Every structure is written in structure tokens, then in C-alpha cells.
């Protein structure tokens, strides 16, 4: 059986049982730096094998998907959930962006089942990192009383935030160095990847369970949203995947990306750009509900959805 999700469960259960286990803060940072760089490198290496002109239209479509998801989520949160503009926009932005670790678990899912996929998909991960966040911020700022978006610091936060720099930097290095240039880096960045992912998932379990207390105050609607929105996202992602001609595996990964919600880049950007929003709400939704749902149940479900849409 695949060991990966069990590490998340171990962390989750340990924290719920109030174990004093905790990973040192700087280890968490170190692991996330490693994962972001490694995924970027991998994607860049595969991109080097690709014809850029063929990938370009796909890339544009993926960018549009990232912008579209918060536009779907926002009215749901605002009308059905009765959240104020700021909180609705912030949560929507989190779901427009993506979770790197969810993506990695998706890749692992395909690898374990020997399902092939377009190896340059990490490029889409990089592309989906930001548009959702930008749209989320626009939703909060435009039409509201304020309306004054300070774009300078915002764009800075988005394009030069930690995760963007590592993902895009890794992508470019991988692309420039190419498969041959990366051979000596393989043992560190690729062979160890899955083990490091396990450690990170252990930590995610601890963190998610540590935030679980917020569930009590967040309300039932948010829980429902955090379970339904990934499925909506996955469906949109699957439709687009088929439309742009991805394989079944690639479609599943795009669906997984669309289903995932950011808990690294988005919280940091939203905290600066939409401080009126309560960060507890977005994090509860993205990290405590959507993330475990995706890695434990979502991905197999999205395989069906992707398969169904692919088949039809």
C-alpha cells in the first residue's frame, strides 16, 4: 500500500491526541524550499524536451483557469455563505491558487499506478500559483468602498514571493541545464523527493490538526464549501485538460491542481493585500479540510471524473 498518506495521518492523529511531537520550524521551511525547487527543476528539465510553441496555447488556457476558479468560488461564498466581501475574496483567492504538496501526491499516485502524464506539468503548477491570488485581491478591492489596490507591493509579493521564486527559478534552471546538466543533481533533488515529501506530510498533519480547533467557530457552510469546491475545481480542470489535449494522467494532474487550495503563497499575499480578511477562515478551509480531502479521497475521485470526461 502507498505509505505517503499515512505520514499525514500520523501527524494529524499525534496532534489531535496532543502529543508534544513537533517538527522544528526551520525544518518545515527547509523541506518546503527543497520541494519547491525540486518540482521546478523537474518541470524545467521536461520542458527542455518540449516544443515551446506547442505548450504556449496550453499555458494560456491554464492561466485562464486559475483566474476563473475564484470567480466561481466568490459568488458561492458571498451569496450562499454570506461572507463579507473581504473574506469571500480571500478564500476564493486561496482556491484559485494551488498546493504544491497536493500536486506531488498526485504525481506519486500516477507513478505508483504507472499512468503516464505530460512530464512538463509542473509548468502549469507554476502558472497556476498566481492568477487566482490576483483575482482574489481584485475581488476584495474593486467595487468595495476602498478600491485602492497598491499594486506595487502586491505584484512584488506575488512574483517575488518565496514559492514563486523557487518554483520558477527551479523551472528556469532545469530548462537551461537540461536533462544532462541535472544528472549530478538527481540523487539529491529527485531520488530523495518522496522521502522528503513524507516528512513534510507528517508536518502538514501536525499543522492541520493544530488548526482543527478553528473548525468549531468556522461554521458548517465553510466545511461544505471546502469539500465541494475541490470537486467543482477538479471538474473544471478535467474539462480544460481534455480540451487542450492532455493525456488521462495529465488531465488528472490538472484536475488535482484546480481542486487544490494554496496554503503557502496565498496566505502570505492575502495577509498583506486583504488584511481585513480573517486568515483563520481561509486556512481552515484550505488546510484543515480541502488538503486532507484531496490527498486521502479527492485524487482517486478526480481520476474517475477525469476518466469520465476523457472518455466522453
Amino acid at each position, binding site marked *: 500500500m502507498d505509505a505517503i498518506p499515512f505520514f499525514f495521518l500520523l501527524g494529524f492523529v499525534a496532534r489531535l491526541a496532543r502529543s508534544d511531537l*513537533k*517538527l522544528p*520550524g526551520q525544518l*518545515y*521551511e527547509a523541506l518546503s524550499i527543497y520541494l519547491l525547487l525540486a518540482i521546478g527543476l523537474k518541470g524545467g528539465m521536461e520542458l527542455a524536451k518540449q516544443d515551446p510553441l506547442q505548450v504556449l496555447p496550453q499555458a494560456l488556457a491554464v492561466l485562464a483557469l486559475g483566474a476563473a476558479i475564484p470567480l466561481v468560488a466568490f459568488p458561492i461564498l458571498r451569496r450562499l455563505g454570506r461572507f463579507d466581501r473581504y473574506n469571500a475574496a480571500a478564500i476564493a483567492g486561496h482556491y484559485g491558487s494551488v498546493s504544491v504538496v497536493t500536486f506531488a501526491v498526485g504525481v506519486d499516485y500516477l507513478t505508483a499506478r504507472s499512468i503516464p502524464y505530460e512530464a512538463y506539468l509542473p509548468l502549469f503548477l507554476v502558472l497556476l500559483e498566481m492568477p487566482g491570488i490576483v483575482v482574489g485581491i481584485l475581488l476584495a478591492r474593486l467595487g468595495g468602498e476602498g478600491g485602492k489596490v497598491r499594486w506595487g507591493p502586491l505584484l512584488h509579493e506575488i512574483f517575488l514571493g518565496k514559492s514563486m521564486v523557487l518554483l520558477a527559478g527551479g523551472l528556469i534552471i532545469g530548462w537551461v541545464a537540461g536533462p544532462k546538466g541535472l544528472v549530478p543533481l538527481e540523487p539529491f533533488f529527485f531520488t530523495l523527493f518522496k522521502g522528503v515529501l513524507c516528512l513534510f506530510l507528517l*508536518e502538514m498533519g*501536525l*499543522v492541520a490538526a*493544530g488548526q482543527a*480547533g*478553528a473548525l468549531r467557530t468556522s461554521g458548517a457552510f465553510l466545511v461544505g464549501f471546502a469539500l465541494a469546491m475541490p470537486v467543482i475545481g477538479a471538474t473544471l480542470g478535467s474539462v480544460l485538460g481534455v480540451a487542450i489535449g492532455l493525456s488521462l494522467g495529465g488531465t488528472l494532474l490538472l484536475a488535482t491542481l484546480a481542486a487544490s487550495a494554496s*496554503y*503557502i503563497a496565498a*496566505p*502570505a499575499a492575502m*495577509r*498583506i493585500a486583504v*488584511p*481585513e480578511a480573517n*486568515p*483563520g477562515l481561509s*486556512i481552515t478551509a484550505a488546510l484543515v479540510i480541502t488538503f486532507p480531502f484531496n490527498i486521502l479521497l479527492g485524487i482517486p475521485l478526480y481520476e474517475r471524473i477525469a476518466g469520465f470526461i476523457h472518455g466522453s
Partner: protein
Amino acid sequence: MPNTHPCKLVVIIAEEALEGPLAKDVMALGAHGYTVSDVRGCGSHGMRSGVWDADSSIRMEILCDADTSLAITRHVEDAYFRNYAMVTYVADVGVLRPEKFVR
């Protein structure tokens, strides 16, 4: 005979996201320096355990004259108190080399 001179010490405990903005602000308001450390804690916004980014806090301390301390605390009150997890306090201390800290 004491060799120290009266000075204000402003301490701000806040979300890590504010480290950059606060550093900029206090220097713009007349401080000549600041010192930051990583902390964790608990308050009206709940537990902030310092394990990951969104959950981390910093403690910034600023030695400055009374006017600057007033300017800093007022600014912090206006700009951040409503939306961010933070507390601020001011103490009277004695510094060596007072010329380092007055505006």
C-alpha cells in the same frame, strides 16, 4: 554615578507578515535601529505556535526618544491594530550612548 540616560523602549509583538512593513515604518518615523526575534504565543487571536509561516510571530524592540515612541505607537495603533494579531508596550530604560537613539 550612573552612566545611563533615560530612553524609551517600544516592544511590538506581531504576526511575522508585519516584520518588513514594521521595520520600514519605525525607521521612517525616526528610530535609528530595531532588534527582532522569532517568538510564539497566545492571545485574543488564539494560539500562534510558530511552526509555519502563517502561524509565526516576531518580537521587535526599538530604543528611541519619547516623541518617536509616541509616533510609533500611534502609527501602529492606526495602521495595524484592527486587522492584525499584535500587542505593543513601552518601558522606561536607561541607555548608554544616548546620542544613538535620539532623533
